[in-house]
């Protein structure tokens, strides 16, 4: 079925786009890469009166480096992240995560801002944002605000974005140079969303874990941080045995729902397997990086 009829605007500047949303926000939907919105339109799960195409807003394609963070424009595509173009190469974790998104066609069109704003519970980039304690920049005619990832993701496909706001950029604090990272995921079919994905970042001090961060996708309505596990790993040895024990010894504190692709029980199992694998690989990378 084709989409229900809608008006279409393609503003040339961010200011114009924000004006449009200021006037018609509640009945409007921004369009970025269209890889999530277009299916919603053709399935008629979304029926906006107005679609605001962001494609001409070149100002949202910039990538800026600050001393300890990257500020990445919302319209930067998955493909650019995957290739580590320009300053994006400073965060190879993004490369690894973006390469796991869908297929080449999806990555060529899909955008970082679209993925974060869409907030699919199984998406990789929101989990990366969560793992690195990132934040998003939101703009409207009312002004600008910066919201941390922990507050931005509110529920399944639901965020702190107001109807008149655009997500203009994502801020990612860069992990310390010696940090190791890994993304491990499981999907039923090549090119699909993950059933569960695990993002791990490990920093070592000597042979011991100085800081470990783990975020999971696919185990609840929003990306989950495994705080208790992270705390338990502090000061532990970084070898596979210690990691396996740490994961096995305590509940991960997640409460996934089951669906047609995986029961809740299987998702919990996958979460443990993928967390272990991601931590092992991140720790190994950190050991390699330190030397």
């Amino acid at each position, binding site marked *: *079925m084709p989409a*229900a*009829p809608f008006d279409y605007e393609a503003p040339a500047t961010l200011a114009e786009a924000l004006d449009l949303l200021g006037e018609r926000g509640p009945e409007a939907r921004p369009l970025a890469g269209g890889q999530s919105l277009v299916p919603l339109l053709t399935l008629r799960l979304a029926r906006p009166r107005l679609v605001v195409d962001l494609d001409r807003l070149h100002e949202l394609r910039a990538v800026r480096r600050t001393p300890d963070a990257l500020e990445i424009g919302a319209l930067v595509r998955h493909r650019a992240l995957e290739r580590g173009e320009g300053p994006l190469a400073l965060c190879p974790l993004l490369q690894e995560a973006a390469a796991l998104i869908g297929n080449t066609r999806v990555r060529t069109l899909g955008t970082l801002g679209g993925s974060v704003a869409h907030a699919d519970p199984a998406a990789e980039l929101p989990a990366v944002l969560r793992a690195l304690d990132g934040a998003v920049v939101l703009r409207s005619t009312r002004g600008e605000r910066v919201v941390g990832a922990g507050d931005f993701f509110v529920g399944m496909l639901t965020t702190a974005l107001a109807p008149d706001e655009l997500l203009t950029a994502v801020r990612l604090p860069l992990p310390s140079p010696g940090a190791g990272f890994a993304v491990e995921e499981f999907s*039923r079919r*090549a*090119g699909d969303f993950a059933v569960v994905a695990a993002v791990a970042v490990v920093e070592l001090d000597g042979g011991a874990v100085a800081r470990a961060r783990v975020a999971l996708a696919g185990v609840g309505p929003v990306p989950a941080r495994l705080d208790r596990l992270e705390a338990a790993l502090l000061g532990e040895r970084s070898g596979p045995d210690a990691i396996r024990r740490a994961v096995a010894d305590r509940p991960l504190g997640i409460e996934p729902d089951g669906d*047609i692709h995986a029961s809740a029980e299987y998702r919990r199992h996958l979460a443990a397997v993928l967390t272990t694998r991601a931590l092992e690989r991140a720790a190994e990378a950190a050991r390699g990086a330190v030397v």
Partner: protein
Amino acid sequence: MAESPTATQERLRVVGRRLPRHDARDKVLARTLYAADWQMPGMLEGAVLRSSYPAARITRIDTSRAAAYPGVAAVLTARDVPHNILWTDVPGQTSIVGPLRARVQVLADDRVRYQGEAIALVAAETREIAARALELIDVAYEVRPGVFTTEEALRPEAPRVHEESNLLATWRVRCGDADEALARAHVVVEQTYRCGLIDHAYLEPEAGVAWIDADGVVVVRASTQVIEHFRDVADVLGLPHNKVRVIGPYVGGGFGGKEDVTVEVFLGLLAYRTGRPVRMVWSRQESLLARPKRHPFTLRYRTGAARDGTLVAHRIELTADAGAYAYLSALVLLYATVTAAGPYRVPHVAVDARAVYTNNPPTSAMRGFGAMQMVLGYESQIDQIARRLGLDPVEVRRRNALGRGDRLPVGQELDTHVAVAEAAERAWAALGPPRPPSSPRHRVGRGLACNLQPYGRLVWLRDWASAWVGLEADGSVAVRTGVPDVGGGQASSLCQIAAEALGVEPDRVTVHIADSALTPLAGTTTATRQLYMSGNAVLVAATHLRDEVRRVAAQILETPVEQVTLADGAAVAASHRSVPLGDVVKECARLGVPRSHLGVYHAPAGDPVDLERGGGRVFPDYTFGAHAVEVEVDVDTGAASVRRLVACHDVGRAINPQSVEGQVQGGAVMGLGYGLMEEIVVDRGVNLTTSFASYLIPSALDVPDVEPILIESGDGKGPFAARGIGEPPIGPPAAAIANAIEDAVGVRITDLPITPEKIARALGLLSGG
């Protein structure tokens, strides 16, 4: 008994060549006008209102608001349909429920029996208006209790789906004394298997356009495997059969899903009512929701074998979920019953099979048609017997393999070559030396599965096909035959056959297909019958024509007719003197010798047999094959992936090896999806998988390169001794994968699809978790 005609020319010039198909280029360039691409001036768009509930009484339908909506040309409900029933006759149903006249209501009258059942039709100026009109139709339902599993449906107090019993059909086979033989067997393996509800999932959803032509004939141009549904359209409209014409464009995938009526009758009704051309294109969700699917089966097997692995007995109980309407369920069940013991010699066999109505989506024809579901049963059983006895899996199959002259448990004697053992050996050997697992957390295993699949329809349906072949004055050739081409290269292969017989290059042959008014009828493109049946009909016609032409050429060349051959577009004498074919055709015209011929091929025919009392011939013949797979299992997640798949079938003779390999590869990939991923999930009659995001079919990255091996035994009942290959390759993969998984990690999965979660559970990874 009818014999297949054979070509007398000893050396084949065109048959057996790897030729690009004549339809390929246009398809790649997006020039093919598929059913939905057809446009006509003044064309309306049709749409279907479908039931929201799987079991309900319709207490009221109010169409007034929809009818009054601007741009709406017609709104039809059951009351507007002249004859609201579609019939399928099932001859020879020897079951306790009696002969079957399977019926489907065109539009729901006062009951809906599955979610998605058609209730009303709309024709409007645009798709958008049609969609809006559907929303404006007001239907009041009184929800009724339904039955959603075969167990539920068979309980005595269960709500009935129709007035008659929920037991829709049964078949029984008794051959020898299975119980007694099982009691004496050295080893007995008992197991229950379940195979799931799946969809055809073709690229092209159901679509078509209908109009009334200048002679008042209702013309339906629709994506279909069966142009002879023109009779159904006529019966529903109350018109003479010769006032309806169905044209079949190239089809973007059928697999049995376009064997039953889809859009044809709806389009006929709307065009007839409005007098205007009407198009109808089902959305993907509609296609996944509403069209009949593959029968899920429960298969209970008790199998006995001697110490050396010789099979002695099977006791088999089969239960199929037919969903809410019979469609072809009784026949699907018959295919299952006939093939349930597999391609093996088993002296004592008892089969009890039943198909049951439920309020689930209806099930009907799909590639493999009941026979393919059985492979999981008989191939898992024989593998477990080999394992128990410590025998080599290939050796056990070789020892039990059927041969020419053996009889199936239903009493049919196999009168052509049977290549089971050879296929098993070749497929297995082609796997080559084992390769190491890709990580320490992976295990590798191998599995084998053989199968048999009938080609051609039941002999008691007295199947036939006709084809017209004509020579033009320039020596070019026209073939006319009512064959729907569903993408398997049906039309292209007919070119090759006519070209072979008449000694011309295939590009000198044009085939006109699939028009019920203008092409001689050739039957359905189903049941692995089209190359076999219409190929034989074309060969009959072309061979007849060749002989006429040779007679006339002999006069021109002043040489005995036996010494004239047709080659390279000319008639050639033994002396190598030749005359162009066009000149011979002109001479035929001058002499009044016919330059065309209508060929008819009759398949072997017979009366319905009593399967319980020795039976006899049920199908014309069978295609045999074997697949070998190498599978890798992740021991932490349970995910299984197929690393290698070798698919070997005896095709008798490959008319176009490239097309045959395409059939084998496509079938194997579909079989792999059936084994590992595909599942229509239905929760109390409600379909949860109506998009390709939830209904998973394998992508190119999920399958290995399928390696086809074609055995050309030179024995088969099709043209040039070909055997049918459309359905057979879908059969073995699921069972071969199940066998390989046991080889890899020691667990036996008995339910399809074999999801990672099921393997993880069998490995004990989830217990207590």
